[in-house]
């Protein structure tokens, strides 16, 4: 996955918030928080905005492209 996250750092900066507390505040499971923090799951826009809302930051402060720039769109056979 090309998207990274600062979720873990932001959690610790916000009073060492637990994964469980964060999960509860945005209505998802702790397992999904783990999947997000380890870069195995890309959230929906709604969830991403909810998470940003919890930390009072912009989406760019929470998620980023790992390569530092937008990667090219994967080519698919249009037929």
């Amino acid at each position, binding site marked *: 996955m090309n998207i990274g996250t600062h979720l873990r750092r932001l959690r610790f900066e916000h009073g060492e918030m637990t*994964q469980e507390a964060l999960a509860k505040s945005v*209505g*998802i*499971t*702790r*397992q*999904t928080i*783990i*999947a997000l923090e*380890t*870069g*195995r*799951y890309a*959230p*929906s826009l709604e*969830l991403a905005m909810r998470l940003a809302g919890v930390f009072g930051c912009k989406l760019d402060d929470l998620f980023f492209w790992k390569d530092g720039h937008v990667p090219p769109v994967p080519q698919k056979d249009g037929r």
Partner: protein
Amino acid sequence: MSGITDVMGVLEHSRLIKVIGFLLASIGFGALLAWAGLVTGCAVGWIGALTLIGWALLARRHWQTLYERNGTEPGAPERVTWQRLAGYSLIFGHMAFSYFNPQIDLHVGSGNYLAIDNWALILGLVVSAMLFRADRRERDERDDQISALATLWGYRSLIVLLVILLTFIGYLPPDLQSIFNHFVIGNLMVGTILLSLITRQAVELLLYARDSLRPL
């Protein structure tokens, strides 16, 4: 590949094997029950039902221990999927063994011990499902994505199995057609549906295994 990725790959592999091993063990236990019923003439379905409930209680305790120890327990929808896989596989194993034993009443539609066994197993499935009823409400978008993909594979397997079954019945030599009376065909259809449900649950667990341990 880096060392960490190697370790993750091995862990992922072992989790995949765990899902397949559990599936085969459940089917095998169901077949063993049917065999025991055939040999002893007892309604062994109750043993299967109690085993299923006992397994559900032990699994719940094990996952609670994992949660308290290091938080590595499976999520609620994954726990429900394990329970369903156990139940469906057990019932399927019991039915599958019966298909290959003409002396069991499944083939002739008389007698009732097999029906008692099957209904006892279904009762065990329902009771064990009740132990996980709170888990059914706890899910999010990631679970829905995994569930949607697993459901797709479940339907695909159902279509493939139905095509195989119908082709088999359609091209059966006339002297064998008498074996496949409507009672047997009905039970084969039930087995086909069960197999597609098992495929769905197994794919879901494989997706959870891949999702939780996929190399970064």
